[in-house]
């Protein structure tokens, strides 16, 4: 009888603090726990009594990597509660800001956090010694995403321009048109990044996931849409709470999400790719095909290819939006506080991020609920490890631990968000 324990006390190259514990007994995985010890920050409680207008700036502070996801999700929820509709160019500008965040966050993860696992480097800086072109290309792409966010939002981390009803200030057309030559170069660089990810060694590992993503009739959904799944779910945002539940388990300061039937599900790049494939641009679809992806990808390690494909798509979207941009006459529309409940959900780089707020007649928040993507993926990360570890029991503890970390990083987990993440512990007797 042999028991092995794999422990990672502090998971690296993820955003936030987490640990992993895997216990293997006679070649069978007994227990997998993704422990999130990132301290709880109580955002939903702290929002009570604050004004509706404060929610975008407060919720942005949940995550420094994807603040725009929180700002736009909160803003849409408030606009939903207050019956506000915005100018089409304001809507397009929000999508452009979000494209900047997708580029910045995806490239950070693809080249700097995840690729080193596949190639056996401790970090991107060590990788840069042997692969200078990839790292330098990634830094240029990441900077482009950040610069777009800075032009629209004032700064890349916790931008200041988004408000309920529109923006505090909108950019001039010439300020955005300046990006077109850089975006044209970036499109070629993103294609090269997709080709690079396709050359990485992938474990033979597939799971039958329940994918959940936003869907919009007119576009690859980012900022808005209905919620759909690979098993035929199609609901409005106001039905989310009836179909998905959160559970508080002892080993995690992040709540675990599941469907109301108790099933785990997957959100993020693989889910969006599977559910909204036809809405990708022809170039992004072609790049995916050339990288060896079918219409549906069930190998979570290949999420690195899908992130690169989505980076390419976000660059093309940015070019399109800028090409069509006309500065709106008014940066925002007037908003009148009233009592109500509002829902917002957007596709953060890591997957859907859900917001629900209740307001009193003075516009003060009386109740808030925020479900970040990593909370929703936690159970799926654990189930991946349960299926994945038995295939690799011949590895020594150091290599098995690294493999487990890599499997967790498939999800680009954002622990800061989920508590709002990871140490690995593998126990083998």
């Amino acid at each position, binding site marked *: 009888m042999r028991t092995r324990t794999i422990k990672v006390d*502090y998971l*690296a*190259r993820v*955003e*936030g*603090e987490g640990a992993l514990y895997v216990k293997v007994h006679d070649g069978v995985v007994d227990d997998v726990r993704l422990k999130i*010890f990132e*301290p*709880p*920050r*109580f*955002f*939903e*409680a*702290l929002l*009570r009594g604050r*004004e509706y207008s*404060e929610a975008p*700036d*407060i919720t942005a*502070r*949940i*995550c*420094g*990597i994807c*603040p725009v996801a929180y700002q736009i999700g909160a803003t849409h929820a408030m606009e939903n509660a207050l019956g506000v509709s915005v100018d089409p160019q304001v809507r397009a500008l929000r999508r452009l800001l979000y494209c900047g965040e997708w580029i910045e966050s995806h490239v*950070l993860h693809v080249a*700097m*956090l995840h690729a*080193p696992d596949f190639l056996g480097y*401790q*970090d*991107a*800086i060590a990788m*840069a010694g042997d692969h200078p072109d990839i790292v*330098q290309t990634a*830094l*240029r792409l*990441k*900077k482009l995403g*950040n610069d777009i966010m800075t032009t629209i939002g*004032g*700064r*890349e*981390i*916790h931008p*200041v*321009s988004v*408000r309920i009803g529109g923006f*505090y*200030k909108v950019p001039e057309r010439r300020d955005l048109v300046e990006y077109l030559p850089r975006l044209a170069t970036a499109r070629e660089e993103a294609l090269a990044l997709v080709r690079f990810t396709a050359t990485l060694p992938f474990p033979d590992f597939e799971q039958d996931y329940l994918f959940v993503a936003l869907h919009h009739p007119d576009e690859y959904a980012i900022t808005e849409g209905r919620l759909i799944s690979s098993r035929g779910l199609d609901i409005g945002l106001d039905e989310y709470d009836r179909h998905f539940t959160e*559970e*508080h*388990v*002892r080993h995690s*300061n992040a*709540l675990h999400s599941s469907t109301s039937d108790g099933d785990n599900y997957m959100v993020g790049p693989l889910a969006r790719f599977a559910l909204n494939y036809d809405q990708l641009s022809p170039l992004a679809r072609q790049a995916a095909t050339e990288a060896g992806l079918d219409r549906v990808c069930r190998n979570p390690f290949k999420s690195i290819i899908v992130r690169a494909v989505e980076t390419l798509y976000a660059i093309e979207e940015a070019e399109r939006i800028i090409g069509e941009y006309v500065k709106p006459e008014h940066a925002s529309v007037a908003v009148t506080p009233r009592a109500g409940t509002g829902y917002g959900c957007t596709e953060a780089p890591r997957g859907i991020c859900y917001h629900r707020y209740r307001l009193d007649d003075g516009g003060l928040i009386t109740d808030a609920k925020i479900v970040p993507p990593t909370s929703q993926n936690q159970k799926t990360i654990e189930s991946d490890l349960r299926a994945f570890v038995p295939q690799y029991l011949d590895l020594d503890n150091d290599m098995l631990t*690294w493999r487990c*970390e890599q499997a967790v990083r498939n999800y680009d987990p954002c622990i*800061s968000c989920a508590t709002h993440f990871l140490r690995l512990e593998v126990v083998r007797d």
Partner: protein
Amino acid sequence: MPTRKPKLAVWKFSSCDGCQLSLLDCEDELLAVAAGIDIANFPEASRAVVKGPYDVSLVEGSITTPHDAERIHQVRRSSKVLISIGACATAGGIQALRNFADVRELAPMVYANPSYLEILGKSTPIADHVFVDYELRGCPISKHQLLEVLNAYLNGRKPVIASHSVCIECKSKGVTCVTVAQGTPCLGPVAHAGCGALCPTFNRGCYGCFGPMETPNTASLAGVWAWHGVDDPRILRGFRGINAYAEPFRRESEAHEAPYSGEQ
């Protein structure tokens, strides 16, 4: 004879990861920085850990758990220079809003089983626990200021960081005053510089990401807001934001709390 590269460590406590991301956001400088210093402990970016002691530690986040209250002492012991970065590390951060409530009442609003949580009653800055060599403000910090502070400490000089108000930054940029021109409440006159007067440039009032400047006259500013018709609950919320637990902002927000009515 080659000289030893200085060792840098980056530590995280309760935070959003944005301030340490600022280091990775130095896209033009990152590889040059990595060539000049040994990034010895930076879990967000690397699996590799080089043991201490470290020449410089950057500390992000506030202290909110008994475990972290212990861990910060270990960080201090292994660091020659400790620099706290960002509003969480220098003032307790947005999560310090809970310092104005009873955390035992807040926890059940978010968690079904509050007894699973190991938390302290308050979110506190690093300097409340250990000696801090330098505090770099901001939510997030400015990456240019971060490079300046790192450069200064690694070369044995004082950082050149302006300590005047956001208001001065606005004047030097020639931005029209949002309070004078539009009556928009703005923390600019009492807020520490560093953002380049970002919010007024975006046609909105400063909300105090960089915390209070030295000796701010918050009461006078609250009077100006009141004159523009801002009521007490809004003044309270204005000071009770990103840097709510920084002493001058804390005192000013408490001065605008509703008087105790004697009713339950």
